[in-house]
Structures are given as C-alpha cells and as structure tokens.
C-alpha cells in the first residue's frame, strides 16, 4: 500500500496537511477551541445548553473535511454558501444538517422558535407592575446597540454590517440572527457566532464590571417594600401581549415574526394552555437551542472564519456588550439620584436583555454585599423590557437603515 492510498484513507489528515499553514493552524486551533468550549460549558463558565453542542460541532467540522468528487475540499455537514436551486436540491440529499440549516436557520425560523420559548418563560407581571421604570432602564441599556454603529463604521464596516454587529449589545441571540439575516447576508454567520459566544460571557464578565463601577456601599442598597403592590391578573397580561403584539406589528411589519413569536409565547402562558406551555417551553425551546448550538458550531469552519472581518467583529461585539452594560448602570445611577439614594443602580444592568441571566447577575452581585437586599422583581421587569426594546430596535434598524442607505 502506497503513502497516497493511506492518505486517501485518512482524508481528514490529508486535507489538513495539504492546506496552507493559515488554514492548518486555524483548523487545529478551532478543534482545540471547540474542546475548550465543551469543557467551559460543563464547568458552568459558559452557557452549557448552547456551548456543548457548539463546541463539539466546531471540533467536528474542522476535523471532518474531505476531498469532494470534483477535487475541492468540503464536508458532509452543511454548505452555507449554496444558493442556486439545483445545487441546493442536490446538497439537501447529501449533507445531513443541510435541511435544518436551509429550512430553519437561514430563514430565521429557529430564532423565532427560541423566541416563542422565551415568551412562554416570561412573566410580564414584573414589567406591568412598573412599566416606565423598566422601559427607562432597558433603553439606557441599549447604549451599545446605538453607539457601536458609528464606531463600526469608523473601523471600515458599512452601515448594514455595523447595525448587525451592534445588535450584539442587545444581548439577544435570536434578535442578532434575525437582524443580520435581514441586513448583512454575507456576514450573518460570523456575527451570529460572535453574538452567541459573547452572550455566554455576560454571566462571567458582568459581575466584574458591576464591582468596578458600583461601590460596595451603593451595591448593598435594599429597596424599600412597596406600600401598594400592584396585583397583576392573567387577563391583564394576556391583554397586554395581544395589544402590544398588534401595535408593534403595525409599526414594524419587517420585524413582525419576532414580535409574534415573543407575544404568542406570553399569550399561551397567560391563557393557561398547559399542553402548549409544556411543548413550547420544553421540547421546542430546548430542541431549537440544541440545533442552534450545533449549527453555529458546524458553521465555525476555518475557511469562513479566516475572513479578516472576524477579528473586527470580535472586538466590536465585546465593545457593544460593554457599552450596553455601562449604559444600564448609568440608567441605574440616574434612578439612584432621582430617588435620593433609595434605588440600587445595579438593577440597571438587568436592562441588557439576556433573559434571565443579567437579572440573576444583578441579584447575585447585590446579595454578595447585602444578603437581605432583594432587587430581583425590579431587575426582571427591566430584563423583560430589554427584550421588547431590543425587538423594537431590530425593527427600527431593519426598516429605517435600508431606506437611507441602499
């Protein structure tokens, strides 16, 4: 048996050796990164639900590359760049993840499924109890979503790509996927990967930012119990979901799938349809999250990630998330001064709409200083408002930007 035959037998190794040094090292690096992500997911440093399938997918796609019949290198997972109908029909019968990618990922359906699941998990009573405060904090926590756009443009991105990467500041994965699909088709894969990688970091990174920006004395402020606690009924929550969905769809038809997905989840929860709640909050949400993670991992192909824009996207993604968190804390400080020191500014960071991670991070940071201080109701209110404001901003970007910049 000749050396050539052996190399044909182990095509993963032969493709690795026959590619240039840049691809070789990137592939090996991504395989190791995939393993690291699985480890960090298992350890709880990053979100395990997403990171374990993502990591293993990343390692597998960079390992399992083979020579195709036409002599080029490829894989049997999926090809995100196929667009011609004939090629697509052929490839749908070969690549095992292609049907899921084509029918759920590239049209945003999987993002909508995740959003329905989020809707079912949301208890909007915290938002209904204090709507203005929650919306104010959420708007402040969108600072990164807006400020990153001019920064990205100054660094060489066009406005559509800049708006897509700026959406990372909203800290809402499905929203980033949806916006980048609508605005920058060429970059939507790396932008979504960057977004999901960073969303896992909010849990690990934000507590340090809180410690840095909020002194211990202020961090431990306990909110005074409210005299008139608003009792919110299921009917009120259902009415809110129906009216808000209709009004927002009327204002932004481009983002209507997102609004519908979110509010249909809320409506089902408040209608008490237990079978549907169990289905959407269980198999649909977790199934979609699993396939989203797996697809994102498989999309982290070395060739795709060797795009020079990736480094820029990585920097802009973290800038956007940081600015949003700072904006949220500024909002918290404004409320602190308005209430003359009775409001805990840490609540502001929960305006970053990573449900419910940022609310949990805020409560944990406060509890570490003052175990008796309970800020979770206000934090969850701001968190839910964050989801709504991010959806509104996605709608604004998708509607307004193509109007001015074609």
């Amino acid at each position: 048996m000749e050396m050539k035959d052996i190399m044909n037998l182990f095509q993963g190794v032969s493709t690795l050796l026959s590619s240039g040094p840049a691809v070789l090292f990137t592939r090996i690096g991504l395989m190791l990164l995939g393993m690291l992500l699985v480890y960090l997911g298992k350890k709880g440093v990053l979100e395990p639900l997403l990171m374990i399938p993502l990591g293993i997918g990343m390692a597998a796609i960079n390992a399992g590359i083979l020579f195709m019949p036409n002599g080029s290198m490829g894989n049997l997972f999926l090809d995100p760049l196929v667009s011609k109908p004939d090629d697509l029909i052929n490839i749908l019968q070969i690549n095992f993840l292609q049907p899921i990618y084509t029918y759920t990922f590239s049209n945003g359906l999987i993002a909508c499924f995740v959003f329905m699941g989020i809707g079912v998990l949301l208890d909007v009573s915290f938002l209904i109890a204090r709507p203005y405060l929650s919306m104010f904090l959420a708007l402040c926590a969108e600072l990164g979503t807006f400020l990153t756009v001019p920064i990205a443009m100054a660094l060489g991105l066009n406005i559509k790509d800049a708006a897509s990467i700026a959406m990372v500041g909203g800290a809402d994965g499905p929203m980033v996927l949806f916006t980048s699909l609508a605005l920058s088709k060429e970059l939507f894969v790396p932008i979504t990967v960057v977004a999901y990688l960073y969303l896992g970091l909010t849990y690990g990174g934000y507590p340090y930012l809180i410690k840095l920006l909020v002194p211990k004395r202020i961090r431990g402020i306990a909110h005074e119990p409210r005299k008139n606690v608003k009792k919110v009924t299921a009917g009120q929550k259902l009415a809110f979901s129906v009216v808000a969905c209709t009004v927002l769809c009327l204002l932004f038809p481009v983002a209507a799938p997102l609004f519908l997905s979110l509010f249909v989840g809320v409506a089902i929860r408040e209608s008490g349809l237990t079978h549907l709640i169990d289905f959407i909050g269980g198999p649909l949400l977790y199934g979609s999250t699993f396939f989203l993670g797996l697809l994102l991992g498989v999309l982290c192909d070395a060739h795709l990630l060797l795009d020079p824009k990736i480094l820029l996207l990585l920097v802009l993604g973290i800038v956007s998330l940081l600015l949003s968190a700072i904006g949220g804390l500024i909002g918290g400080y404004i409320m602190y001064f308005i209430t003359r020191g009775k409001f805990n500014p840490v609540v502001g960071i929960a305006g970053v709409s990573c449900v419910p991670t940022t609310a949990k991070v805020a409560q944990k940071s406060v509890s570490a200083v003052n175990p008796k201080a309970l800020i979770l109701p206000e934090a969850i209110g701001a968190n839910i408002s964050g989801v709504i404001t991010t959806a509104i901003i996605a709608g604004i970007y998708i509607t307004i930007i193509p109007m001015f910049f074609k």
Partner: protein
Amino acid sequence: MNVFTLILYMYAIAAAISFFVALIIHAIYFVIKIMEKQKSGKNEPMPLSAANFKEVQTEAALMENEGEVMAAIAMALFLHSKDLHDEETLKLTIKKSARPYSPWSSKIYGLNIYKR
C-alpha cells in the same frame, strides 16, 4: 444623512415607541382593573335594608342560643385539625403480629383447589 443624526433619530424613535408600549401597559392595567371591579361589584351581596334587618337580627339571636351547634362545630374542627399532620416520622417498619397470617400465602384462596 449624517450617521450620528440618523442614530440619534433612531434612538428617539425607539424611546418614543418604548414609552408608548409602557403607556399601553398602564392603560390596559387600569382598564382591566376597572372592568374586574365592576364585575365583582355585581356579585356582591345586597346591602341590608330596614325591612330584612329584623329578620337577620332574630337569626343571629337564635344562633347565639344554640350552644350545642357551636360545640359540635368546634369539636368537628378540632378532630379534623388533629387528623392533619405536617410531620411524619419517616420510619418505615414492618409491624410484627402475633400470628403471622397472610391471605397471600393461604392455601384456601389458591386458584388450584383440587377435590380430594
């Protein structure tokens, strides 16, 4: 249009819509609260009129005299509350009986009973 101006406009639009949503939430809360109040108001008992006030007063007097009824209710409540217990011993033991008899091992109840 300048990018900064556009960003500012978009932020203003986002803020306006967000507070509009908050206003909707506020309005819905109060409309439904008023509707529920009206609905529950219809189910409330009618206030006592002068005509039936005497009747109610007599009934209350009768109830006061019927001490046995009260005692019976108190006894029933006491027995009921004694029967409810929050804490269990959590000890699972098999009680030994004097005569270890069980119908499971009884030959009388067997399926195959042959005539002798």
